[in-house]
């Protein structure tokens, strides 16, 4: 299990941004095709793009290859089931699929067997949003991508690890060989900076 520090470099983020912008629309259309006509080919294309990334995510958090693959399978089955709730104006494909996986992951962390709902995040569908919410959320992905580009590489690194690890603080501290307190303050500072950038870009767009 390893995460190369170099993969967090800003150049890579910029390169990722280009392809992510193009891909995001392609994947939006594929989810819509699954919703509209239960399009199997579209689903297969989504599966081939996202399932290996979902697997990689879970493996980074410490899951075995087979458990991570089962997780990716289950998350993609949920994509098939819930495709009609997808709304590209509210969330791009990657965000929507990330959120589905997030809800599943929280489900997995439950240590009791009773069938109880876990608190889900809803990005579309049964959300009661005010009109300005919809406007505000419409280009979150673009704004978030730009904001990430303005963070320092070590801030992106720590945020990215925090998203992927099950016990982020201690695992990041061990991985980066930093004291726990440093990891916590680095996460906090990165979050504050990201939020400040996003808030000022919202202001600017009004």
């Amino acid at each position: 299990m390893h995460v190369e520090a170099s993969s967090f470099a800003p150049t890579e983020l910029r390169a990722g941004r280009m392809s992510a912008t193009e891909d995001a629309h392609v994947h939006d259309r594929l989810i819509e095709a699954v919703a509209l006509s239960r399009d199997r080919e579209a689903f297969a294309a989504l599966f081939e793009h996202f399932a290996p990334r979902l697997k990689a995510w879970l493996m980074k958090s410490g899951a075995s290859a087979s458990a991570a693959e089962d997780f990716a399978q289950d998350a993609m089955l949920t994509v098939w089931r819930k495709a009609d709730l997808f709304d590209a104006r509210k969330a791009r494909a990657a965000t929507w699929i990330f959120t589905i996986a997030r809800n599943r992951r929280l489900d997995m962390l439950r240590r009791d067997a009773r069938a109880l709902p876990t608190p889900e995040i809803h990005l579309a569908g049964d959300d009661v949003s005010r009109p300005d919410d919809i406007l505000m959320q419409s280009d979150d992905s673009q704004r978030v991508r730009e904001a990430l580009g303005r963070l320092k590489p070590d801030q992106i690194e720590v945020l990215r690890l925090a998203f992927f690890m099950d016990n982020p603080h201690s695992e990041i501290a061990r991985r980066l060989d930093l004291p726990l307190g440093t990891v916590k303050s680095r996460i906090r500072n990165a979050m504050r900076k990201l939020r400040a950038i996003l808030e000022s870009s919202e202001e600017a767009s009004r």
Partner: protein
Amino acid sequence: MTPARNPSEDRLLAYAAGTLSPPEAVVVAAHLALRPANQAWVKQLQAVGGEFLEMTPPSPLSDEALPRAMARIETDAGEARPSAPLNDMAELPAPLRRYALGPWRWIGPGIRVRDVHAPRDGDCRVILLRIDPGRETPRHTHGGVELTCVLSGAYATETERFDRGDLEEADGDVLHQPRVVSDEPCLCVVALDGQIQLDGWLGRVMQPFVRL
């Protein structure tokens, strides 16, 4: 953005990433329902997660992965689990309405508690706490983390006031004696880890009767 009375940034991040313990996630979900600005921030964090997912170098799947997925969607009968019925407290924010609730129990003068049948995590579980105006809870410390979100009314600790939607994070070091300062009773949802250790003479008298 007030740092106090809001979840810490790393707790919000853990919530967005799906790594927060389920009882804490229930309390944070209630807080977000009452704080649209933080709700919007969590949705932006979902977009950050989507971005990171997109940037993740893919891990090759086994050969049978795609055929298996295609076979599953052909035979899929949909979600097996119907959504749970709404509980009897219409005043609760939406994320709490689908959990069954235990009976109200008296735990001290003007203090009642009710279990929320949300997922537990070891000793950590979710309760509703209702305290009458002017009442203090017995002075207490905690074995573990306590996360409290005010759903109605208000309480004050030695240093701060907490109103509807405010969230308080307390750990084992905090000596706690909240007092209700609203005219109406104060209703809170709490993720409680470990046993409350009551302190002082009242605590010693009450301890045998209190099963929080």
